[in-house]
């Protein structure tokens, strides 16, 4: 095992982590502020990916496609909030789970009707198709490096937005005490719609960046959503800081586990046993981690501070 490979795998882990973070940030905001469990968050990721793919085929400009997908999904998210979710805030979580599960089915069928069941093909933009030499000997795909940069930039932006702007203040206030904020004359309904739309746009950002490396197809959101829930549980529900930490931890643990668990096990229990145990254990790692966090720190590693 050489250290260059370890560094490369850490980058892979970080890249997967920031992808999870883009999803987790929106999901945790919506849960923390509106107390809404949104299973359909993965569908918004899918919608973002589809809109970007469609726009890319019309304009063949990746940037234009990205803007279109973000705006489109923001709109879709706000529409969903106004039409379907608004009535669910006061209901218990089971009702929310049922309703948003229904939305998953709706969105999967809707994209299958519009774009068909077959996977859509998109390529990495030409400018980012090559590799960058990050360190001597480490050639990393440029596109994945950009994903890491975008993810970290979004994290910084979110931090500034939530902690140092008026909108962020309202968001935090709304999370602490909804009634009081409304009594002070803030349009809390509008605030919720905006936050939900914003979360949707973050999911779309994840989706549109995922399109060229993964595959754009109906149901793509559910694959990642499960891991996003793990992230939120580990990081602490409702906290953006927790979402970032959880996402990077999950990304790293999953990637490094897949890469190095088997070789490490084979030195301990022998190669043939490691062949069987390694992959099984690697795919369980993040869930074992989640169970451990739930057992020792049920509120998560960085829980949201509540007033």
């Amino acid at each position, binding site marked *: 095992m050489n250290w260059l490979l370890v560094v490369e795998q850490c980058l892979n882990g970080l890249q997967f982590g920031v992808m999870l973070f883009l999803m987790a940030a929106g999901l945790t905001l919506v849960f923390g502020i509106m107390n809404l469990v949104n299973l359909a968050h993965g569908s918004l990721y899918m919608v973002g990916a589809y809109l970007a793919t469609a726009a890319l085929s019309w304009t063949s400009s990746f940037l234009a496609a990205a803007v279109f997908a973000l705006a489109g999904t923001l709109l879709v998210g706000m529409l969903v909030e106004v039409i379907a979710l608004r009535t669910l805030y006061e209901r218990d979580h089971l009702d929310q789970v049922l309703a948003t599960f229904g939305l998953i089915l709706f969105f999967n069928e809707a994209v299958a009707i519009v774009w068909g069941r077959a996977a859509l*093909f998109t390529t990495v933009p030409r400018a980012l198709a090559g590799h960058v030499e990050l360190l001597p000997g480490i050639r990393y795909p440029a596109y994945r490096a950009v994903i890491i940069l975008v993810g970290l930039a979004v994290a910084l932006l979110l931090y500034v937005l939530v902690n140092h702007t008026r909108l962020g203040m309202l968001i935090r206030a709304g999370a602490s005490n909804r009634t009081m904020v409304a009594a002070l004359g803030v349009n809390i309904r509008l605030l919720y719609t905006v936050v939900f739309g914003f979360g949707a746009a973050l999911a779309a950002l994840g989706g549109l960046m995922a399109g060229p*490396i993964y595959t754009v197809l109906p149901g793509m959101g559910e694959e990642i959503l499960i891991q996003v829930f793990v992230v939120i549980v580990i990081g602490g529900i409702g906290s953006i800081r927790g979402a970032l930490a959880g996402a990077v931890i999950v990304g790293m643990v999953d990637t490094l586990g897949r890469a190095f668990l088997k070789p490490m096990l084979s030195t301990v229990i022998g190669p043939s046993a490691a062949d069987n145990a390694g992959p099984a254990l690697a795919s369980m790692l993040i869930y074992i981690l989640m169970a451990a966090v739930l057992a020792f720190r049920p509120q998560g590693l960085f829980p949201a501070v509540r007033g």
Partner: protein
Amino acid sequence: MRALKITAVLALVAAVLVGPAARAAEPVKIGFITSLSGPAGIIGKHMKDSVELALDHLGRKVGGLDVDMIYGDDQRKPDVGKQLADEMLKKHKVNFVSGIIWSNVMLAVAPTVTGAGTFMIGTNAGPHELAGKMCNELYFTTSWQNDQTPEAMGKYMQDQSINDVYVMAPNYAAGKDMVNGFKRYFKGRIVDEVYTKLGQQDYQAEISQLRGKNPKAVFVFYPGDMGIQFLKQYAQAGLRDQVPLYSVYTVDEISLPAVGEAALGNYETRYWSPDLKNEANARYVGDFKKKFGYTPSFYGAQSYDGILLIDSAIRAVKGDLSNKKGMTAAMRKADFKSTRGKFTYNVNHHPIQNFYLLRAVKASGGDVEMQIQKTVFENHKDAYSQECPMKW
């Protein structure tokens, strides 16, 4: 007057009594289980469309009987597949269960179906258990035993004296079968064997590991959506030009429309291809393209064959669905016009058939398509038939 009335009533009663007997015989009920939703839903669509085409070709009758098709979506989950089978058996009282893409789902469903005394006609998955000790009078497959196809690839790579091969497959029943089959005929050095999660999307970590080991060739089994992801990421990592990729069930009519040139030049082995020359296949592929507007895959060809096999069985017993012995005997003859051409059944009800080497090449229209290069195995038997206790 009164007598007339009685006569009328009697006539009516007679009509009611005679009515059902005079109608056509009971329809045959076929339950078809496949993955219709989620990332693997595209495979299910290929299979379902092919079943519908088979019904069209048979004039919407199977074995001369009206047919009731019941489709079920297993979502690639064994437990869901088993529930569907139970529902089809108990609620719908089906005569045949068919379909099934995934070996782990098949291992849950087939014993349930045959245990209830109903026919199971597999049209894709071929786990080795069902070809060996668990073989059954009521279980047939129109596809292959899992090991067969990678055996052909193993043979080809062995003949080419390729060495230092890196092997990858998803970690489930069929993944293990594929690697075992490959190793049965490939005797060169294997650099490493890597199993990934079923349904995994991102292979970047594994591809980094692969590059670190510097293999001379890569052999993979990544069906459906997994293949699309893997091929794309393999090409993006710049490995396509460096390390040749050999695969089974990965570069096909499911993945090619999505990956196109990222698969150009890749080798596969298979028992069937759209360009296989025979009358039944030309009709199947031609009518399929006409009706659905896309190129069918082997998943579809097998499903089409499945309906024709059922048709041949019911025809042989003249529509008497209670004559299961008769239908088993009829199906053992494989007496229908298969899309792969003439084939025979082994004692374990798995086909003895040819396997070909295919390559992804650019067709005249500019699309990338699979074309047969040569025959690797003629009338190839699977490795488990001796373990099957059935005699006939």
